[in-house]
C-alpha cells in the first residue's frame, strides 16, 4: 500500500530558496523570470528526484522481473496515483501519460475523433485556443469530415457563452475542446458552465488545463469534464511528460493512438489485442525519469498548497494590472473578470520583440510574439504582444521592476 505523507505546508515567502536557478544572474543582473507560462522553473526536490532515480534505482519499467525494474515501476506508477489524487479522478486508470498537452490533445483527436465520432459531427473550439488545441482538430476536419466551429471571444477577453450555446443548438457537436485558462489573456473560462451546457446538448468536453492546473486545484469530478489535459513542465515538473485524464467509459471505447510495446495484451501476425486502459494508450518506453520528477513536482505544489498559490497569484495579478496600466503607452489585452497571472500587453511605439530584448538586457525574461495563438492575435488586431507570467516564486518587487523598466523602454523608443 502506498502511504502518502504530505510535507508541512511551506510558506510562500520562502519558496524562492527551493529553486536553485532563481539565484542565477543574466547579463550580470539578477534574473527576473516572468515567463513561467511558457515553462516553469524546477524546485530542488524535482531535480533531486530525477538524479536520485538515475543514481540508485533505475531500469525499464513494466517488463523486468528484477529488483531495479520493480522499484522503478513502482516509482513511475506512484505518479499516476498522485495525478489521480491531484485532479480528483475516480481511478488511476483514468490517467494516461503523454509527452505533453499537445500529444494528449492529439491522442483525443485521433482516438476519440476518428475512433468514436461520426463524420458530419462537429468539434467546437474557441478563438482563444493555443495552436495545440486548434491544429489537431483542423487535421481531423480535413481527414475525416468533422466540422470545426469556433466560439467567439468578447472584447473583454471572455468566452462568449451565448455564442457557445448557439453553436451547440443543433445537437451536432460531438466534442467541445476549450482552454481552462488562456495562455495569452490569463482569462479563466467558466469550465463548469461550459461542461453543463455541452452535456445538455449531447457533446463531450475536453478542457485544456495547461495553464489552469498551475494556479488552481482541478477537480475533474466536480467539473464533470470528459477529458482534461495538462503538461508537466508548466507545473514545476520536467519536460517530456504530460497528462490526459479521460472518463473511463470513454477511454474504453476509444481505439489505441500509437501502436508498439507496452500497449498490447497479446500479439500475433494475424491479430493483436490491446492492454487495458491506461496502458492501451501508452505505447513504448515512457518518460520514466520525467514521470518520477513529475511526482516530486506534484508533491511540491501540494506542500505549498493551492490555497496559498491562488491567493499569491491573485495578489500578483492585481498588483501587476495596476502597475502596468500606469505605465504610459502600455495597453493590456483583455480585462476578464476572472483572470490570473498571465498578462499580455503592447507598448506604444515599440514592437513586442524590441520590448522583450530591452527587458532582457535588464535581466527580465518575458515572452514576445504570438504565443502560439495567432487567431487570438488577429481577434484583438495585434501582430504580437509581450507577455509577463507569474509562478509561485514571483514577487511583487519583480513586478515593480518590470513596470519601472518598461517606463525606461518606452522613453528609449519614444
Amino acid at each position, binding site marked *: 500500500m502506498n502511504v502518502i505523507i504530505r510535507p508541512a505546508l511551506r510558506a510562500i515567502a520562502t519558496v524562492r530558496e527551493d529553486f536553485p536557478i532563481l539565484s542565477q544572474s543574466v547579463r550580470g543582473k539578477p534574473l527576473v523570470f516572468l515567463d513561467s507560462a511558457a515553462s516553469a522553473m524546477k524546485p530542488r526536490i524535482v531535480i533531486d528526484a530525477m538524479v536520485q532515480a538515475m543514481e540508485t534505482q533505475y531500469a525499464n519499467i513494466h517488463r523486468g522481473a528484477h529488483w531495479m525494474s520493480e522499484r522503478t515501476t513502482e516509482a513511475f506508477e506512484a505518479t499516476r496515483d498522485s495525478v489521480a489524487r491531484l485532479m480528483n479522478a475516480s481511478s488511476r486508470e483514468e490517467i494516461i501519460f503523454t509527452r505533453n498537452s499537445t500529444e494528449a490533445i492529439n491522442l483525443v483527436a485521433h482516438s476519440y475523433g476518428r475512433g468514436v465520432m461520426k463524420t458530419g459531427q462537429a468539434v467546437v473550439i474557441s478563438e482563444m485556443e493555443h495552436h495545440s488545441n486548434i491544429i489537431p482538430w483542423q487535421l481531423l476536419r480535413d481527414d475525416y469530415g468533422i466540422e470545426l466551429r469556433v466560439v467567439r471571444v468578447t472584447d473583454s477577453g471572455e468566452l462568449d457563452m451565448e455564442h457557445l450555446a448557439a453553436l451547440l443548438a443543433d445537437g451536432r457537436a460531438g466534442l467541445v475542446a476549450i482552454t481552462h485558462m488562456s495562455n495569452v489573456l490569463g482569462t479563466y473560462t467558466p469550465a463548469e458552465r461550459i461542461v453543463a451546457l455541452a452535456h445538455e446538448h449531447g457533446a463531450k468536453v475536453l478542457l485544456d488545463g495547461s495553464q489552469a492546473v498551475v494556479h488552481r486545484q482541478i477537480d475533474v469530478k466536480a467539473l464533470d469534464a470528459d477529458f482534461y489535459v495538462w503538461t508537466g513542465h508548466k507545473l514545476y515538473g520536467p519536460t517530456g511528460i504530460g497528462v490526459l485524464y479521460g472518463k473511463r467509459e470513454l477511454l474504453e471505447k476509444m481505439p489505441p493512438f500509437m501502436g508498439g510495446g507496452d500497449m498490447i495484451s497479446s500479439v500475433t501476425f494475424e491479430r493483436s489485442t490491446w492492454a487495458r486502459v491506461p496502458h492501451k494508450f501508452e505505447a513504448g518506453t515512457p518518460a520514466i525519469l520525467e514521470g518520477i520528477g513529475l511526482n516530486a513536482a506534484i508533491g511540491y505544489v501540494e506542500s505549498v498548497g493551492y490555497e496559498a498559490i491562488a491567493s499569491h497569484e491573485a495578489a500578483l495579478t492585481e498588483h501587476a494590472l495596476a502597475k502596468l496600466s500606469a505605465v504610459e503607452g502600455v495597453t493590456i489585452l483583455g480585462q476578464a473578470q476572472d483572470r490570473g497571472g498571465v498578462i499580455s500587453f503592447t507598448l506604444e511605439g515599440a514592437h513586442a520583440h524590441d520590448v522583450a530584448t530591452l527587458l532582457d*538586457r535588464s535581466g527580465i525574461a518575458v515572452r514576445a*510574439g504570438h504565443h502560439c495563438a495567432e487567431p487570438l492575435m488577429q481577434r484583438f488586431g495585434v501582430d*504580437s504582444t509581450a507577455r509577463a507570467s507569474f509562478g509561485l516564486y514571483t514577487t511583487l518587487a519583480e513586478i515593480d521592476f518590470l513596470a519601472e523598466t518598461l517606463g525606461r523602454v518606452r522613453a*528609449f523608443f519614444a
Partner: protein
Amino acid sequence: MSASEADIYSSTILERARRPRHQHRLEPFDIEAREVNRLCGDRVTLRLRCDEQGGIAAVGYEARACAICTASADLMAEIVPGMTRAEALSAGQALGAALRSDGTTDWSPDIMPLRLFEPLRDTPSRIVCATLPWQALAQALAQGLTQMPAPGADEEG
C-alpha cells in the same frame, strides 16, 4: 536605457525603424515575395524591379515588424539596387554568416553598411529579425529566375 543595455539599437537602426526611407509599395514591379518570421509573426513583403541585364534596379518593401527587421529591410532596399542577382544573394548569405559566426568572419565591402547589426551575435533569437528581409530577397530571386531577363554570361554559375 544605458548604452550597453541598448547596444543592439544603434542610432541608425532606431532612426530607420522610426522613419524608414524605402518602405513603400513599389510600382511597377517584376517580382514580389513575402516572408514571415515563424516565431513572432512578423512579415516583410518585398517588391523588385529588374533592369535589362537581369540586375536589380529598384527595391520596395512593406514591413510589419520590429525595429531590427524594419531597419534591415530599409538598408537592404538602399544597398541592393545596382547589384546583380548573384551579388544580392551573396550579400544576404554573407550577412547571415557574419551574424552566426564567432566574430572572425569578415564583413565584405558589400555588406559593410549592415555591420551595425553585429551586436546581435550576442542575441541569437534576434538574428532572424535582421536576416528576414534578406530571406525574402532570396525567395524573390529564386522565383524570379523564370520571370526575369536572362542574366549576362559573366554571372553564370
